[in-house]
């Protein structure tokens, strides 16, 4: 039963994708929307069915053997366990809400069919990613979501910048994917299987804990996770990816795809436990990312970019959790984050559409009256984001992370987490104030056209808002038994202290924000305007200049290389032979000057040379 439901929930989006893709443009926008949203809705229902049918044990279904050559026998097979069910729930559930919202958001856009085709293909790929029972199939989903992300970021293809953003997203994540692929090669060669269950089974037998190979394998897989999950240093694509339609940002670049890295590491936890150093590195990278993105979010003016950096930052928290071995906590935060970040993005989308595609904070403002639903969404989502104690979903998950960090004795990570909480408060408040309070910055902001459709506009926001409160946290089933014991599972000392600390950090952040953005607004402006402050602002706005680093370190050299080689110098080298022939021809043709005397001379010359060489070599006699 459950497997049927699972397969069904995979096939529904795929079928709709195929239907949409091959319909050409015969389907009108209405039919496309219906198919696109409906199929994901049905998939969500199927997922629900699967959840209901779930018996507690993981189940596998092997559709067919993909390739079978010697030991190499990856299958097309799905495995359903609690983790994949949680992920499926997020993908189809949140996905459906976002699809629904998109029906409002995208109304009137050209190429709706294409939009839903991509979106549903994405849902399908993401489902495959979380359900795959072997790494190769996982890789299929992994690459598939990347491609869909590419297609959707570049959805507004007329604008060159969007295309380049999509391009960048694809290439940067592809770099990560190569590491993942190499990791797969290594695992296959060492363990002899790609089946995730077998790999986790065999790995401790093949590798000693902390052995070099295990470290390398974990490191390579981490590389893949970094790319997809936009962690330092492969994070630069995410802010640019906001070029896509907002539902895309909500679904792909906030709720699901970017958390695939977290899922991957959680899924392969056994492997990472064999490589403690790498696991620590995961945490460190998470901490660095969360701080770096937190700071960067402070200095963004585009609301979607703020949210993008906040996503990076939140995923940083998840990585920190992974890094201390608290896989459950990471997935918990992944879940709640999916809810509240989707809510935030959708609310932002509501604002953006209402204000005629205006997404510059400076040009918005004072909208809280006109856009109450969006405002509410932002408030609830923001609360969850800053982890407002007790009422928000974010509080529970983030608290879990910080607690595990503390329990694992990673003081550095803990401090980073707390500092991050302060930063979160800061930029969240700045965001909400910037959009909904103060003076409207433009004509569009003064006369918004708020979304009124109850079903497609309000409903998703409301549902997500509900899920972003503590209710959402309750919904999380807990995956503790699936993972090795987290460090904080047994002990409980200091948890309360930590909660106080965390709450303090949140409140400090909010207070600081209130003080800064409400009281000292003018001062802030003047600081940022010029001098060191301006430079700081620029640095943060450009997210610490990673883009420039990539540009001068990789892109430009590549372009020089391409430009330098454009003439195909090796081919030119081979053309040298042709040149020699040409020269030879020219030289020889010159002797062919039509004069009898010359001909005679050449002939005699030939004879003479031959005879003289005869005299010289044979001594003219014996």
């Amino acid at each position, binding site marked *: 039963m459950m497997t049927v439901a699972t397969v069904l929930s995979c096939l529904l989006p795929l079928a709709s994708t195929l239907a949409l893709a091959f319909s050409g443009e015969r389907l009108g926008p209405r039919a496309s929307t219906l198919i696109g949203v409906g199929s994901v809705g049905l998939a969500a229902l199927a997922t629900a069915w699967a959840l209901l049918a779930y018996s507690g044990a993981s189940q596998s279904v092997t559709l067919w053997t993909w390739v079978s050559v010697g030991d190499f026998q990856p299958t097309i097979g799905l495995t359903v366990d609690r983790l994949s069910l949680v992920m499926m729930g997020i993908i189809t559930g949140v996905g459906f809400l976002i699809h629904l919202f998109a029906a409002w958001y995208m109304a009137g856009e050209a190429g709706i069919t294409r939009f839903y085709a991509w979106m549903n293909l994405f849902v399908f790929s993401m489902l495959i990613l979380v359900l795959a029972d072997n790494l190769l199939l996982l890789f299929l989903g992994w690459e598939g979501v990347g491609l869909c992300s590419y297609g959707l970021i570049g959805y507004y293809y007329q604008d060159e910048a969007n295309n380049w953003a999509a391009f960048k997203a694809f290439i940067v994540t592809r770099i990560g994917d190569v590491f993942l692929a190499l990791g797969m090669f290594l695992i296959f060669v060492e363990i002899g299987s790609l089946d995730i269950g077998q790999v986790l089974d065999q790995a401790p037998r093949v590798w000693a804990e902390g052995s070099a190979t295990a470290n390398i394998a974990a490191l390579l897989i981490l590389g893949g996770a970094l790319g997809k999950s936009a962690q330092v240093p492969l994070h630069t694509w995410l802010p640019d990816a906001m070029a896509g339609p907002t539902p895309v940002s909500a679904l792909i670049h906030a709720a699901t795809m970017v958390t695939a890295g977290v899922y991957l590491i959680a899924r392969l936890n056994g492997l990472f436990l064999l490589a403690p150093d790498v696991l620590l590195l995961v945490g460190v990278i998470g901490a660095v990312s969360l701080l770096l993105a937190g700071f960067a979010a402070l200095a963004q003016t585009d609301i979607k970019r703020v949210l993008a950096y906040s996503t990076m930052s939140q995923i940083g928290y998840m990585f920190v959790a992974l890094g201390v071995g608290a896989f459950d906590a990471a997935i918990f935060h992944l879940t709640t984050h999916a809810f509240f970040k989707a809510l935030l993005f959708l609310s932002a989308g509501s604002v953006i559409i209402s204000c005629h595609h205006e997404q510059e904070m400076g040009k918005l403002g004072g909208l809280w009256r006109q856009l109450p639903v969006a405002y509410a969404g932002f408030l609830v989502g923001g609360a969850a984001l800053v982890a407002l104690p007790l009422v928000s979903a974010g509080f529970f998950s983030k608290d879990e992370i910080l607690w595990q960090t503390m329990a694992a004795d990673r003081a550095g990570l803990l401090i980073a987490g707390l500092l991050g909480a302060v930063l979160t408060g800061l930029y969240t408040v700045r965001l909400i104030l910037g959009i909904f309070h103060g003076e409207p910055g433009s004509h569009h902001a003064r006369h918004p056209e708020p979304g009124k459709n109850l079903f497609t506009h309000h409903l998703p926001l409301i549902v997500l808002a509900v899920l972003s409160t503590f209710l959402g946290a309750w919904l999380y089933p807990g995956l503790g038994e699936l993972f090795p014991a987290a460090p904080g599972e047994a002990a409980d000392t200091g948890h309360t202290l930590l909660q106080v600390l965390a709450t303090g950090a949140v409140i400090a952040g909010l207070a600081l924000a209130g003080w800064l953005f409400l009281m000292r607004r003018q001062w802030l402006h003047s600081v940022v305007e010029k001098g060191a402050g301006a430079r700081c602002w620029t640095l943060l706005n450009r997210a610490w200049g990673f883009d420039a680093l990539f540009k001068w370190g990789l892109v430009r050299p590549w372009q020089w290389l391409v430009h330098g080689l454009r003439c195909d110098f090796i081919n030119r080298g081979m053309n040298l032979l042709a040149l020699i022939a040409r020269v030879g021809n020219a030289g020889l043709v010159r002797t*062919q000057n*039509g*004069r*009898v*005397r010359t001909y*005679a*001379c050449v002939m*005699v010359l030939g004879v003479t040379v031959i005879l003289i060489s005869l005299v010289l070599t044979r001594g003219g006699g014996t």
Partner: protein
Amino acid sequence: MNGVPMEHGLVLAATLFSLGLAGLMLRRSMLFVLMSLEIMLNAAGLAFIVGSTAWNQPDGQAMFLLVITLAAAEASVGLALMIQLYQRFHSIKLDNVSRMRG
């Protein structure tokens, strides 16, 4: 040893041959070129005679006869061509016929 060493005869022939060759290469008048060819053929004939007399054998002299035959034939054809050359260009310079090249 009495008599002329064979080498001397051959050297004489070679000298005449080279002179003919030099004429062939130097001169641009067809008449002179034809005469140079006669000299060369004659030199070859001389060499045959030298060989023939040295070995005391008639074959070389018979060869000489053939050479003379050829020389006559060649001279007649060559001169005929030269006449055509003259009729066309009113000159017997061989450089006239160097249109084909390359």
